[in-house]
């Protein structure tokens, strides 16, 4: 069961620049005003993780892709994370729309290593993502 919302080509282009040319650190996606297409609303090369968190609105849903870097066994690693942001305070219509459209966006991207479903800031905090990234790498 899905909303039937489609993914714009801009989403794919932004994702490619993040994954292949590493031009972006993160991309934030939302729905177009007519609620028919998923579009990127922000791309950024900002390295500070908290700036990224600050770009996720307190009471509105978004999706994000984040190129997460961390150290494991004294080697630098990176994992691409897919984040579904659906704060409890968002309106039910938006929650429903985003949850039923998520799969379309997620399936468009290859190479996602970590998936996070966040409903409050603690679930998308740096340590929470780090924990997931660590446990998904061997």
């Amino acid at each position, binding site marked *: *069961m899905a909303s*039937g*919302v*489609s993914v714009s080509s801009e989403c794919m282009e932004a994702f490619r620049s993040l994954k292949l040319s590493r031009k972006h650190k993160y991309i934030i996606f939302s729905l177009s005003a007519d609620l028919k297409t998923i579009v990127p609303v922000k791309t950024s090369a900002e390295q500070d993780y908290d700036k990224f968190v600050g770009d996720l609105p307190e009471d509105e849903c978004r999706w994000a892709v984040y190129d997460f870097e961390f150290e494991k066994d004294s080697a630098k690693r990176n994992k691409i994370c897919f984040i579904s942001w659906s704060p*409890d305070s968002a309106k039910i219509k*938006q*929650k429903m*729309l985003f949850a039923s459209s998520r*799969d379309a966006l997620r399936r468009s991207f290859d190479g996602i290593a970590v998936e996070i*479903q966040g409903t409050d800031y603690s679930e998308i905090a740096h340590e929470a993502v780090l924990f997931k990234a660590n446990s998904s790498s061997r």
Partner: protein
Amino acid sequence: MVNYGGDEVSALVVDIGSSSVRAGYAGDDTPKAVVSSYYGYKTTAGDSDAKLYLGQHGPSIWREGMEIGNPWRDALIFDFNPIPPLISHALSDIMHANPSEHPILVTEPAWNIAANRERMAEIMFEEFQVPAFYIANTGVLNAFAAGKGSALVIDVGHSVASITPVVDGFVLRKGLVYSALPKLVHAHAKHVLTTPTPTRGSIDLYPHQLIASKIPVEPSASPRFALREDRLAGTTESWRTWYETREVDEWIQTVAGVLDQGWNEQVAAARPPRQYEFPTGFNTSFGPERFQVGEEFFYHSPQLVAQNPNLPKNIPTLLSESLRACDPDLRQVLMGNVVLTGGGSLYTGFADRLENELSRNFSHVKIHAPGNPIERKYGAWLGGSILASLGTFHQLWISREEWQEHGKAIVGQRCK
């Protein structure tokens, strides 16, 4: 809005439960029609198309020889005969909508069988002549309405309690479990009321329809009422069962609760008692026994289990069975995304107790339990209402032409 032949028409959403049929326009916040799923009928020899008594002027009006029926049995729609009249009552009589002009989204439980969903499609296309149809799973609708693609949906309804793991928008079948737990809780409540205690006798559960007069009495004193003798002989067994169920439900909704920390005699005794008056005029205050009732959701004594091999499974048992079927990695995700829904979960303290039960075994537990009772009772309807109102959803509807071309097979292909 959905586009049909150039006109924008809103879809209709119908959520059929064992206690009520919820129907309304897609895009609305609440269903326009909430009709009891129980219906009255009279058995007259040789007349197979007996009239059904539905809705507000249905089962609750006393009629000589009227029996009460319900389409559900064992968590599935068992008898489809009353389904078209129930839907028609909600859509045509209450909402004044013409089903043949609107696409209709119907809900189904996650454990629904293919024959039932195909029958529903057939009723919609052949009897109601709808232009388009979709059948959506209540587990997924509830997860989505809570903003979650992955969730553990705990749905406590009128007659079934279920746990549905939803992963990336699909039901994880092997982790799907359900039982008739609400019926056991109800039976326990009835037992509490009809069993004499040192301070009171067995409580009569006569409804107001059978009471001719009553005189106010002191709390816990024997009631003084006169029955409508003229009606007793014409009252059927099924109507009596139905109204007793209603009286017990009313009592449960007003009085019963769940202790958030687990059963504790002292804590139960320390909670303030609650006053309740029955239609007979009998009134008394209920102390610890009102928590014993809710306790049945979470704990069954070893004796009870030993005596009843088919006892409906309680919430902790359902939970462990469901989680055992899921990978350990997934369990943690599900525990962080528990969605509590269904009118039967509105017991005071239910969500807190659930959280305590879960936190004992899992480190990160988060329960999404809408505080708004409308959202809790009509979560699946609301999810369907939003989904069916989306312009982009039109690609998913099964159109009348597709039904005519492919028949029943299209239902399983399209509605996953």
